[in-house]
């Protein structure tokens, strides 16, 4: 599944940051607490979060996160997007709740198990 596929699945909109949309989404992590994301995410993670501040981008940078999905229609600031672009992080926003977004991704990535 690429970031493009993820966006389609969640009816999400790509925001102005990295445009590396064909990158493979390998692992996923859903967290509103950044120290939980820092403790529980694996390599090549796509981070789903309802938190929307500069530290989300910082956390993603530290973790080498590939993409950030803001749930519940959260809109990052231009400063956040600028930093994400600089760190080569794809950013999208979906109106889905955290629960629904994670559920849809789980379903799509665990088919046939």
């Amino acid at each position, binding site marked *: 599944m690429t970031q493009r596929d993820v966006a389609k699945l969640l009816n999400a909109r790509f925001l102005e940051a990295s445009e590396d949309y064909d990158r493979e989404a390998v692992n996923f992590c859903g967290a*509103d*607490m*950044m*120290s*939980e994301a*820092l*403790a529980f995410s694996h*390599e090549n993670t796509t981070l789903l979060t309802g*938190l929307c*501040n*500069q*530290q*989300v981008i*910082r*956390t993603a*940078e*530290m*973790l*080498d996160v590939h993409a950030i999905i803001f749930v519940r229609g959260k809109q990052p600031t231009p*400063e956040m997007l600028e930093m994400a672009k600089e760190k080569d992080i794809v950013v999208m926003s979906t109106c889905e709740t955290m629960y629904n977004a994670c559920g849809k991704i789980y379903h799509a990535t665990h088919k046939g198990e």
Partner: protein
Amino acid sequence: MSEPIVLKYKVTDGEFQHVGEASSSVKKELRALGVSPDALRRISVAMYEGEVNMVIHANGGTITVEITPQQVKMILDDVGPGIPDLEKAMQAGWSTAPDEIRNLGFGAGMGLPNMKANTDTMEIDTRVGEGTRITMTVNL
């Protein structure tokens, strides 16, 4: 053997928005030096958690990073309130952070245990009313 490379940062207790600038800068330097992605990620996570702690619990401080071909050593110094019960503080989920910090995405009580998990050694020297020094190393 060549001298270690030493980097020093002042972490100010200013706007929360700027927390992580030191960790970001160290990550950039280490990447340029060719540190492996796995070690780089562990160093970044440990240092960032420590940097955030300095700001939310101790009004800022200083970070010194010593780099040799074998090891990265991070020394985090603050003159904050100190940690009265270190055993408790090291437990996952234990936090004294107020709600306003939790609303910013921190204060889950995960930082210190995660710093330990990501480093090869971690020592904490803390005195109530005087401050805290955390020394962490990651082998390269």
